[in-house]
């Protein structure tokens, strides 16, 4: 026998880190995505702790201190057309802007995935009916569909959320249907069906785990669009109502002040831009970390 001793077997068998863990490890190495995540986290913290951070009451108007420029004492970012402190309104604005911009996507993700996965798995007539309905919604550019629904339902927080959710459900359902149709034809699904597993078990155990990643990545990419659309609806007067602080609405009311104080008037748009681009970059990072092809 040889004198060389073998290493303990348990040291040779390496455990694979697992799908989610390796995804997060890859994401954590992505500097751009991490920066975007940091910005988003900061925005959420601003929204949650707005009363603690904001230097002034966002609704305290002052007719004699209207449209102060950036850098005025007590008004670090100036004041708006009703003399309200811009910095405080931008901080408080994060609350409603993030609520109306972000919430529709997870709701649409759940409903759209359910519809799409069922349609993709069932196939046949059910699939045709669902996918033709989805086609109808695809006949509207997103902005037009959102405006049509909000315009008919009227302004307000709930109606905005409903309209945007309806805009995103067909988009998510279409992606979910196409990936499910691909997975459904794979051998292990056939095998499960042949061994007599009921449909709901196959969907939950074989299909769901394999389709969720691409649907999820697509849904995260919609948040950036949703932020712009939601604030756009408010900008048109279709979203939240005054005097609530919301970036799109602030942009709308400050439009009249564009000659008097242009730099203050464009500030809320900067916030929408930063939020939208952060969500977009994070979604891009997630896409490559999860290795989903677009």
């Amino acid at each position, binding site marked *: 026998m040889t004198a060389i001793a073998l290493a303990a077997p348990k040291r040779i068998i390496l455990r694979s880190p697992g799908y989610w863990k390796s995804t997060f490890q890859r994401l954590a190495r992505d500097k751009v995505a991490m920066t975007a995540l940091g910005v988003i986290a900061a925005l959420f913290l601003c929204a949650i702790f707005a009363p603690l951070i904001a230097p002034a009451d966002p609704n305290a108007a002052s007719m004699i201190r209207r449209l102060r420029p950036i850098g005025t004492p007590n008004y670090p970012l100036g004041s708006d057309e009703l003399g309200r402190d811009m910095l405080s309104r931008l901080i408080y604005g994060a609350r409603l802007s993030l609520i109306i911009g972000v919430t529709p996507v997870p709701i649409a993700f759940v409903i759209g995935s359910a519809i799409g996965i069922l349609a993709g798995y069932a196939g046949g007539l059910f699939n045709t009916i669902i996918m*033709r*309905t989805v*086609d*109808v*919604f695809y*006949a*509207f*550019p*997103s*902005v*037009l569909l959102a*405006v*049509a*629904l909000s*315009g*008919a*339902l*009227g302004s307000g927080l709930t109606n905005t959320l409903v309209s945007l959710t309806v805009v995103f459900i067909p988009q998510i359902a279409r992606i979910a249907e196409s990936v499910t149709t691909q997975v459904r034809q794979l051998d292990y699904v056939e095998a499960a069906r042949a061994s007599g597993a009921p449909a709901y078990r196959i969907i939950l155990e074989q299909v769901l785990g394999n389709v969720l990643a691409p649907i999820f990545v697509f849904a995260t990419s919609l948040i*950036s*669009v949703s932020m*712009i659309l939601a*604030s*756009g609806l408010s*900008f*048109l*007067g*279709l979203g939240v109502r005054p005097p609530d602080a919301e970036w*799109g609405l602030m*942009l709308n009311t400050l*439009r009249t002040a*564009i*000659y008097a104080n*242009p*730099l203050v*008037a*464009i500030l*809320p*748009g*900067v916030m*929408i*831009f930063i939020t*939208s*681009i952060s969500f*977009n*970059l994070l979604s*891009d990072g997630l896409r490559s970390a999860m290795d989903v092809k677009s």
Partner: protein
Amino acid sequence: MYAYAFKRLLHIIPVAIGVSIFCFLLIHIAPGDPLAAILPSDATAEFQAQMRTLYGFDKPLIVQYGLWAMRALQGDLGLSIATGRSVSGEIASAAVNSIILAVAATFIGFTLGALLGFMAGFLRGTWVDRLASSLSILGVCVPHYWLGMVLVVIFSVTLGWLPATGGGPGGSAGRAFDWAYFRYLLLPAITMSVIPMGIIARTVRSLVSDVMAQDFVQTLSAKGQMAPRIIRHVIRNAAPTALSVMGLQLGYLLGGSILIETVFSWPGTGFLLNGAIFTRDLPLLQGTILVLAMFFVSLNLIVDLLQGIIDPRIQRS
């Protein structure tokens, strides 16, 4: 070709019917009595009953839809509450302005986007490539209504070069292809062009790099063909997809122009829609959305057919 065209047409019909049902239902999902939305608030009870019968609101929903759809097919979309004029007439005069704006924006966006995307695909991994990808992310993420305001701040408020709002020197009536009119078109068109520019740049970049990776391009360069000839081949292969993306973008811009037209008070369909929302003019809202959606559907069909003509391989797939 005819079989392909027929198939596409058959596919479009159910979508068009679905779109019309959606638009029809818009008045019914609106809170309150649909009649109340159509009539002025001070209408007498007798007049209300008369109108109820006339519009068919006393009939079952499906019959109402049939009547509405028949009228819509004949170009009768009802009367605007705010102005009392026919909705179709209002849309027709606004549509011209919207089309001018959307075509101008698509032209700017496509020219710059295709150029940028082409260079990025040809020079992959260089600074041009990085610039193109950054610009395409910015183009998608920027709230374009805000970008419009920023451009107004720069070019109208600060520099005073271009007018901030309006549809031309003589309002919506004065359309002439001269510099005076062009000045009004420039800012909204540039603002609008940012959206397709990024998307087209990204599409063209990936098309070009795909074609560049193909064997025949390798062969061409191995045979000592010069860059201009290779570029010609690359363009021929990338053009059909790029053009179809452009067509779709034109549709998106026309349908989604409401925000930019509102910022610049450009008297197009988006501006009309915005007015309809403010005055709760539901027939005008419904009619405008129907026309815009149908236009988008037809444009998709035309793009599909053109693509089938340019690239016969698509017909077989």
